[in-house]
């Protein structure tokens, strides 16, 4: 395997693992937020806002990784 092939492999694997981590994070976040809304429906708005912000933070980390994967494929 050449170095280019390895780079593509790394980028693909990286993107996959990134998706896995981000999905897990947002999944846990959504499950807990829904649980909280179920317990306290009157706090829905507050919980939703907090949920969206945390989702954005998780997504931000995922995007850092995705950008690195993209760089890896484009620089080959």
């Amino acid at each position: 395997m050449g170095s280019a092939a390895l780079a593509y492999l790394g980028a693909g694997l990286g993107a996959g693992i990134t998706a896995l981590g981000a999905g897990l994070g947002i999944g846990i976040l959504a499950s807990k937020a829904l649980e909280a809304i179920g317990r306290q429906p009157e706090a829905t708005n507050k919980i939703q806002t907090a949920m969206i912000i945390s989702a954005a933070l998780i997504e931000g980390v995922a995007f850092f990784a995705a950008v690195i994967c993209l760089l890896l494929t484009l620089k080959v």
Partner: protein
Amino acid sequence: MVKDSVTTNSAEHKTDASHTGQTQSHSTATHETAQHSGGEGSDVFSHLFSELGDHNGLIIGPYKVSELPMIFYHDQFYFYPNEKAMEQAGTFSFHHGHPVLTSTLNQKEPQKPSFDLSITNFVFFQWLAMFLIMAVLLFVSRKFKKNPLKAPSGLQNVVDAFYCFVRDGVVKPNIPSARAVKRLSPYFFTLFFFILVMNMLGLIPGGHTATSTVGVTGALAITAFLVINITAMRESGVGAWFKHLLGGAPIYLAPIMIPIEILSMFIKPFALTIRLFANMVAGHVVLLSLLGLLFYFQMFIIAPAIVGFSVFIYVIELLVVFLQAFIFTMLTAIFTGLAIGEHGHEGHAH
């Protein structure tokens, strides 16, 4: 990052075109070669992605609407109305899609002009967004000033709703001091509206998303950084701001805490930059990849599926456009609140 490689791709197209004896300007050359190689799959993606980069012309679909000026500073100002004029004048020429000094063209690393201030399509769309916002807001504020007692109507209601949403939903809950809320509400409202309009201009066919370049989001993040720190200094004093660098830890932890706090101070705007940039680029890349599949396979059967997926992604993009404008504003407000919230409040949470 993405942009660089994109321009390299189009530069390769350009050299192709010049081999066949055509001396065309940069972007027309890209279009030319793309038409030649429309059938050969691999070129389609690079051509489509080159649409995401910056061009020195206003291109809508296959049509070049207008050319944009090239401006350089290299010991003196150079101004060319378009790319052709630049190449004819001879001081600068293209090397891998980047303008370089012609006299250094034969060297291994040709010299770039010290400052490239060319008006690209992104700059154009950013100015368009500014113009739209200014027109709308000045119109609305004039109406409010003229008839302060009349019930708002039409456009006034839209702007009013946005303003109240930003002030009551974003700024007030996050910034503890009422004085700062009053002073910063216009900034946050403008920030939200500006990012929203820039994002939305990219969803119009032929439009470009100015926020999909690191330059634009970086500049927004730098202003956010200044707002965060200057507000903190004004509200809680310069001394408190320096004390905040300690993060509330005892003094003997200073060697650890101060670097961490200084790093976190700079990581926040950096994360804001990358988040907005990556979100806007990611949507376009997915959309263009789907469209690229259509050209790649050249089968009618998959067209309905691709169109369906594209519309689906487009709708998601519409959501993302609002969400990212909201998140950028919200996070700036939260960081400002955290930077101020030293005295009495819950203190530090990062």
